[in-house]
């Protein structure tokens, strides 16, 4: 007679179901038992085939790289003052100042029209300090002209809502 944890009578199912692992391996034998006559072998063969298929799939699936973009040949990110990596193209290509094509050369939809808002936000943030600096007797005329332009722009923007 088997006690708890041993096989049941005549090799039948175990008395203690906690000793049987649903995934196999962690139980006493790893083989499923208790199915109908002739079915145990069939079920266990299916389990073995399933495990082999899983192992094969896992080995074929590349594991996630430990570092992002590992294996991708990315150029090192330089600094703003580094020499250009595209010497045949003006550094200002795509912007509306300097040599090269302006923003009209950019693909449609590439730019959104947020730059005006961004400018206004930055200017609004610093305009009081800039205006104070422009009152300095040493302030160059070019700086005063710039601050006057910002003040006029901010006033007209306020009028237009």
């Amino acid at each position, binding site marked *: 007679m088997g006690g708890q944890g041993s096989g049941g009578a005549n090799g039948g199912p175990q008395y203690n179901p906690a000793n049987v692992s649903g995934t196999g391996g962690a139980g006493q034998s790893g083989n499923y038992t208790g199915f109908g006559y002739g079915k145990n072998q069939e079920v266990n063969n299916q389990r073995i085939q399933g495990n082999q298929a899983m192992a094969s799939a896992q080995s074929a699936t590349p594991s996630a790289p430990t570092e992002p973009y590992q294996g991708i040949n990315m150029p090192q990110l330089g600094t*703003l*003052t580094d020499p250009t990596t595209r010497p045949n193209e*003006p*550094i*200002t290509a795509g912007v*509306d*100042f*300097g*040599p090269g094509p302006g923003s009209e050369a950019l693909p449609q939809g590439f730019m959104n029209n947020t*730059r005006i808002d*961004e*400018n*206004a*936000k*930055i*200017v609004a943030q*610093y305009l009081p*300090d*800039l205006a*104070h*600096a422009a009152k*300095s007797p*040493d*302030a*160059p*005329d*070019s*700086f005063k002209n*710039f601050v006057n*332009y*910002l003040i006029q722009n901010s006033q007209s923007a306020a009028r237009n809502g």
Partner: protein
Amino acid sequence: MADITWMPGSLFDNIDKFANSLGYQNSGIAIQLAMMSWKSPEERDAFITSITGEDPKGGTEKNYIKQNF
């Protein structure tokens, strides 16, 4: 607020140079570039020249208070 001392490479000098070199319509970019930590006015001016293809515009040195270092 303390009085502003206009010296080459100071924040307001940088703003003056970038705003007048890049154009007033690019004031946001100009202010942000002016806030970068430029090693020297020469490096800043070289950067302006590299992106505009022209000499920096803005106040000249005659506007600055001459200091003996």
